[in-house]
């Protein structure tokens, strides 16, 4: 049970607050204290109070309410702290707020106003606790990385607490629509149902029956009545994935449900009242589908009370730096590390066919060639090299060597990248080489080259496997 702690040196005001709380709808239990030591002792033995009422001028030489409020704020960051006084001037109020109080209560107010402040405090404490629970829940949510996911974690609780009854998620395939649904489901928890349906996976002839149910004998094969998804989700949420694939007939039925919060199972003669909020998702723009006449305009407007747009990965390439290490850490057989050079190459690929899902799957494939747990450029599939944007790619031609120019490079990095590029170039020109041949071509002493190659492999500028394919480093001693 929530607790209200009240400390005051005036027993009559303690009584007055007791009377107010006793006659109020407040569920919290009030504990009144005349003595500071008893107040602190009791706080030590209890959990976080919902509300703390502190008198400003306590009739004691040492501690007064102003000193206490700072301690209380540090100890109970969520509790609602109210300072009370018979003085009501701006400087006193300002001083209390500066020390961490949430409210100031003038004792001379009538009982009705005092009760209003206590009710407000109780509601605010409940809101803080709920917010804290949601934050805690979000921290517990696995598989979240990147700026966009973090933004969603801030926005979705607000959407859940709002009056919105239909939210639409739009994003290309692989941008994280399912993750959005996971966050909703996680935050809703067991308080209400959250049911998912992939509209595209259900045959159009059955979709109405699946969503809204049917009565016995409604159609051939309907041997018994069936409760639809919307009825099962009464009081909660339905997630309609790929909502654009709904047939025109199902669109009309869905519109009726959203408009009137009423559904009629297939074959039934009467409607049922329901209270369901809808989260829908598509990888096609509903607006464009409406313009093409493939989706009902009224349903589109109804579904998109609020829209969450998930940008494609190519429009948020900076997030790759967070996403790739995250996937490398959490992948089976891991944790893996990715070399800087490999990450740079991945950042040049547009990921337009599968966005984050494509990136994750590509990394999984690359782990096959992660020697020593390090993913180097040699593990990158050929199609990535082919489609990586040429202007940023490490390119070697017979005339020049182009290097990534999008950010300033350190001198040592530049040297390493140059050397790797030159080795690849020599390999392309000459095929498999001995160390001696390569040293001669690059005009570097063989021992220097040998040391350099070792450090390139060690610092993951090039994979040992890739190097072995190009250069016979074992032939060093034979000269």
């Amino acid at each position, binding site marked *: 049970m929530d607790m209200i702690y009240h400390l005051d040196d*005036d027993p*009559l*005001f303690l*009584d*007055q607050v007791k009377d107010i709380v006793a006659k109020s709808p407040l569920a919290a239990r009030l504990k009144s204290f005349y003595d500071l030591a008893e107040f602190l002792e009791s706080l030590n033995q209890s959990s976080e109070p919902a509300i703390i009422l502190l008198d400003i*001028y306590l009739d004691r030489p040492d501690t007064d309410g102003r000193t206490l409020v700072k301690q209380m704020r540090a100890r109970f960051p969520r509790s609602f702290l109210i300072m009370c*006084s*018979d*003085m009501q*001037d701006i400087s006193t109020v300002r001083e209390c707020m500066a020390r961490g109080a949430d409210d100031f209560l003038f*004792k*001379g107010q009538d009982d009705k106003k005092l009760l209003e402040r206590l009710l407000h405090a109780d509601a605010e404490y409940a809101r803080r606790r709920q917010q804290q629970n949601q934050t805690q829940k979000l921290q517990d949510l696995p598989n979240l990385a990147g700026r966009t996911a973090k933004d969603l974690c801030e926005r979705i609780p607000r959407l859940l607490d709002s009056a919105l009854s239909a939210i639409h998620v739009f994003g290309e395939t692989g941008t994280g629509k399912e993750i959005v649904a996971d966050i909703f489901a996680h935050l809703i928890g067991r308080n209400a149902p959250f049911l998912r349906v992939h509209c595209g996976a259900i045959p159009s002839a059955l979709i109405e029956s699946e969503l809204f149910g049917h009565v016995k004998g409604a159609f051939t094969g309907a041997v018994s009545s069936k409760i639809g998804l919307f009825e099962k989700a009464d009081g909660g949420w339905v997630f309609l994935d790929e909502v654009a694939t709904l047939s025109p007939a199902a669109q009309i039925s869905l519109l009726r449900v959203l408009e009137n919060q009423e559904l009629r199972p297939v074959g039934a003669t009467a409607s049922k009242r329901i209270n369901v909020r809808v989260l829908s998702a598509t990888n096609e723009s509903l607006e464009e589908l409406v313009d093409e006449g493939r989706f009902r305009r009224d349903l589109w407007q109804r579904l998109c009370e609020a829209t969450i747009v998930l940008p494609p990965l190519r429009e948020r390439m900076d997030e790759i730096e967070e996403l790739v290490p995250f996937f490398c850490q959490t992948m089976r057989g891991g944790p893996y590390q990715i070399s800087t050079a490999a990450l740079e190459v991945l950042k040049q690929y547009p990921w337009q066919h599968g966005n984050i899902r494509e990136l994750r799957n590509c990394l999984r494939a690359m782990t096959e060639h992660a020697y020593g747990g390090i993913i180097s450029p040699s593990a990158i599939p050929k199609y990535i090299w082919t489609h990586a944007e040429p202007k940023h790619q490490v390119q070697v031609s017979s005339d020049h060597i182009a290097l990534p120019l999008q950010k300033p490079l350190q001198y040592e990095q530049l040297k390493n990248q140059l050397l790797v590029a030159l080795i690849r170039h020599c390999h392309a020109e000459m095929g498999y080489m001995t160390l001696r041949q390569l040293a001669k071509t690059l005009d570097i002493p063989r021992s220097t080259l040998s040391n350099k190659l070792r450090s390139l492999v060690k610092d993951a500028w090039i994979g040992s496997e890739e190097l072995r394919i190009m250069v016979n480093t074992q032939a060093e001693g034979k000269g």
Partner: protein
Amino acid sequence: MSEENTSENLLHLTLPHRPVEELRRSFHDYQAAIRTLRYLAQKALPPDDAAFEQKKQSLDKHLARLDKFQDSILQPLFHQLVKHEGS
């Protein structure tokens, strides 16, 4: 001579100098006393008294007058005193 100056002179004439903190504390104690008396007076009226309604009306009337006196005279006077002493 302006009205403000007259008022300030009057304060000089009638009230001895007091530190601001002492003034604030006195006013605080006065307000606490009034609040306590108000609370006790309200509690002292037994609801089963035959003339409860009349007595309550009378008490409310007196309390309202007290409020009016405090808001229109005491409070401004206190602020003026604090301002005067602080300057």
